[in-house]
């Protein structure tokens, strides 16, 4: 269990760091000037159909500018991801200071909950509906 904790915390910190670097590039002019034509989504590049997560970056940028309705239009999952992006580093630091594993306990509990059919089926449906909406919006 201890090994798993180290692994999970490492993945989470790398993911959060990558997320913040990605956001920084999007907020600075660098991205909009040079790379806005490229786009990062592999699936969209190959099939030209947006994937379920397309638009989350634009959604988070809209939230940061205070434009919540526009953020919801780009992708509703932006709210979820921004919350995770803010909470996870704080939680990691608290766990490191107090030498506890509360984040791991929470993660395992959420994972167990999501594997129940009653929670999993609505969640899958939600993702699929959002995906169809993404395709309809042609992000």
């Amino acid at each position, binding site marked *: 269990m201890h090994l798993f904790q180290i692994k999970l915390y490492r993945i989470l910190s790398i*993911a959060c760091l*990558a997320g913040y670097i990605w956001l920084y590039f999007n907020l600075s002019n660098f991205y909009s000037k040079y790379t806005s034509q490229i786009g990062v989504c*592999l*699936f969209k590049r190959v099939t030209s159909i947006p994937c379920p*997560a397309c638009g989350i970056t634009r959604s988070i940028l809209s939230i940061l500018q205070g434009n919540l309705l526009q953020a919801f239009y780009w992708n509703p*999952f932006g709210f*979820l991801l921004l919350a995770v992006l803010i909470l996870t580093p704080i939680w990691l630091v608290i766990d490191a200071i107090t030498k506890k594993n509360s984040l791991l306990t929470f993660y395992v509990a959420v994972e167990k909950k999501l594997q129940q059919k009653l929670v999993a089926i609505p969640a899958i449906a939600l993702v699929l509906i959002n995906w169809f909406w993404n395709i309809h919006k042609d992000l």
Partner: protein
Amino acid sequence: MEANKVDMFIMSNAKFFESHQLHIIRDRLVTIDDSKWVMVSTAQFKDPSTSLIISIIGGHFGVDRFVIGDTGLGIAKLLTCGGLGIWTVIDWFMIQGATREKNMQMLQQFLY
């Protein structure tokens, strides 16, 4: 448990585990009680080759992680465009090891 039963189990299930774990599994299986044989022999392990195929096809949406039971990481992959496409590629190489590790975790529930 009888040695020939254990050897049969090891032979038919060797591909589901890391090779360095096989000795530990064998030693442990020989010492445990015979009543656990039914559970151990009927356990459904995930095939690393299958999860590699799933990872190549659906890795961008985190399907590979969902299949081996890593629901949390699967959602993380799904909501970040496969970790900006980088995590997808990394997992093509990591997923087989991750599957074997999951199998080992599952077997450990019976062994201890």
